[in-house]
């Protein structure tokens, strides 16, 4: 498509053309109407003047006969700028008047007509006149008329003004249309260019926002917000697939190696059985990792926001503590609960329980063995409009520099590489907190780690269609 073709096919230009046509037609109509009306007005005035003359002349004739009429016509004809007069006998012989030439037969018809004439005192070219011919008793014919030159002049001025204004509308309209279209086209072209590079894979590019706040700017802003989200999702996806590649392939390789090893070296049933059992164990661990990953992905995408209900956060804390208490005791750790009463909040009880259980599981896992004073405290409390579910231990803790990284998927800090587990516990807790519109906070417990899931009591904030954020509503007490 040529540049000009593109220009002509653009919506803006076509819109300009439509407006142009409408305005040109309007201008033409307006001036046409004006021209027609002025012409009518002139004609009416002339009619009235001629009518009055005719009445006057008839009166003169009645009073003084043909002589008086001829006298009056003679004197009136001589006045400058006078009307047209002509009186003849029945035979067509001129008696008086200032008309020198008339098309033949004009005087034969009585009544109104428009005709060409020439004045006696002004022989130049025929003019147009509106005349009335009437017959007097005795066969005399009288013509009274008025020159139409003024009317025609005005008419011509109006018509030419009409032509000019239509031409002006067309020229200005076309120029304006082209100007606006080119401006819009330039911006749209820039947008198209940018989107093309984005489509080709450069997700970091953003559309240009001119800052005028017009509809193109709004569109660009919305598209940019969309790109932002897509980029974040893509990045997340990229990370997940990298991590999957690493952390799922490693155990899969182990699994495969064991099976091969068993095939090669096991030579009795016990050997095979042991290898198979370990294979099943390994695959169970893989499935667990996979489930946790899916769960995190779902929580992060915000899909799991359906079925949100009221539940008692204090009860969740007590329940999880009760579930883990025997395990802690077996490891020689004291597990305390500080969750009195009832803390109603909106959210997903099951997911919050799972997140909290991951934190407790971690605390138990990383507590220093043989530490006589190992202690874990699970607590639930409110702080303003937030519910804080916390797990505090006095174990080794996480150095401040590592805390942000610890929440990332699959990150197992060096010291904990030897421990079993998918390394997804903290990231799952974090994803659940985000799903509820809250966050996971890691802090120093002097000594040890304090992990807090801070959730808004009203549940996740939901985006309404108009983009305003509204809280999910207070739990019913």
């Amino acid at each position: 498509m040529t540049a000009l073709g593109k220009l002509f096919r653009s919506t803006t230009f076509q819109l300009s053309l439509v407006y142009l046509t409408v305005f040109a037609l309007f201008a033409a109509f307006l001036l046409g109407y004006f021209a027609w009306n002025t012409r009518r007005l002139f004609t009416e005035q002339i009619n009235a003047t001629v009518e009055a003359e005719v009445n006057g002349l008839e009166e003169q004739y009645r009073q003084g006969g043909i002589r008086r009429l001829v006298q009056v016509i003679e004197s009136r004809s001589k006045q400058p700028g006078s009307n047209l007069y002509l009186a003849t006998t029945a035979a067509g012989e001129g008696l008086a008047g200032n008309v020198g030439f008339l098309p033949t037969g004009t005087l034969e018809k009585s009544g109104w007509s428009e005709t060409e004439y020439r004045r006696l005192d002004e022989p130049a070219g025929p003019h147009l006149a509106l005349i009335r011919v009437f017959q007097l008793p005795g066969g005399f014919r009288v013509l009274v008329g008025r020159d139409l030159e003024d009317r025609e002049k005005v008419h011509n001025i109006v018509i030419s003004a009409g032509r000019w204004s239509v031409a002006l509308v067309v020229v200005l309209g076309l120029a304006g249309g082209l100007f606006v279209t080119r401006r819009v086209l330039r911006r749209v072209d820039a947008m198209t260019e940018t989107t093309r590079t984005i489509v080709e894979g450069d997700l970091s590019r953003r559309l240009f926002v001119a800052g005028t706040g017009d509809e193109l700017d709004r569109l660009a802003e919305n598209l940019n917000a969309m790109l932002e989200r897509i980029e974040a999702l893509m990045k997340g996806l990229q990370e997940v697939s990298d991590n999957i590649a690493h952390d799922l392939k490693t155990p899969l390789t182990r699994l495969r190696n064991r099976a091969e090893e068993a095939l090669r070296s096991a030579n009795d049933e016990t050997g095979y059985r042991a290898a198979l059992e370990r294979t099943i164990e390994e695959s169970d661990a893989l499935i667990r990792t996979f489930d946790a990953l899916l769960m995190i992905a779902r929580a992060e995408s915000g899909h799991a926001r359906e079925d949100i209900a009221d539940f008692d956060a204090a009860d969740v804390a007590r329940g999880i503590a009760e579930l883990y208490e025997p395990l802690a005791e077996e490891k020689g750790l004291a597990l305390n609960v500080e969750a009195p009463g009832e803390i109603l909040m909106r959210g997903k009880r099951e997911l919050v329980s799972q997140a909290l259980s991951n934190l407790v599981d971690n605390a138990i896992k990383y507590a220093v063995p043989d530490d006589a004073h190992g202690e874990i405290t699970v607590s639930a409390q409110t702080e303003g409009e937030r519910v804080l579910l916390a797990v505090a231990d006095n174990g080794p803790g996480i150095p401040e520099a590592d805390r942000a990284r610890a929440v990332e998927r699959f990150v197992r800090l060096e010291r904990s590489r030897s421990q079993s587990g998918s390394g997804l516990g903290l990231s799952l807790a974090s994803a659940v907190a985000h799903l509820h519109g809250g966050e996971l906070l890691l802090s120093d417990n002097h000594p040890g780690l304090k992990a807090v899931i801070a959730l808004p009591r009203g549940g996740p904030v939901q985006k309404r269609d108009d983009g305003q954020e509204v809280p999910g509503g207070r739990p019913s007490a």
Partner: protein
Amino acid sequence: MRLLIVEDDREAADYLIKAFREVGHMAEHAADGDDGLALAEDGRYDVLVVDRMLPKRDGLSMISTLRSQGVETPALILSALGQVDDRIKGLRAGGDDYLPKPYSFAELLARVEVLARRRGGKSEETTYRVADLELDRMSREVRRGKDKILLQPREFRLLEYLMKHAGQVVTRTMLLENVWDYHFDPQTNVIDVHISRLRSKIDKGFSQPLLHTVRGAGYMVRDSTR
């Protein structure tokens, strides 16, 4: 026990049929939702094992159609979708239990046996007895022989569930779901510790153990002399 396995993957279905036959159950196969519906309509099976995603008619629709026809055969849904929400949807459609894929056969077998036995209506009984162990659901008292055993509320519910299904294998997940009402995986096997606590209360000091560990599957309360 007569089972109907509705599963479109031929290999998975064959594996299940073979495995169920090995433990003495009769299993038949339907490859899609319409076939499953046609076979199960007369209620001749004890348990239906239904894959959630099936050709022609999906598993949930098949089960809800059966329920609307008054067929109350217990149904277990197998699904690759393992999230809590999916589970709830499955149970709402009329499923009685929900097992995410991949599962162990021991888990499936334990759940299917519990479902089949449920028709017997043991839950109406107020007192469960296994050998000399007695659990009174009304007074919430537990006795072993003449000794009264003091249990924590959760331990009581754990024992209650195990005794309700006495003679049947109960898996760790089943306990977590039914006694604690949690449907997630707690990573470490917390249930084992609860069981060993319970065991120390009801079996310690008695010559005949009643709470058995079934290797690779779960636990069972059983009178081993009978």
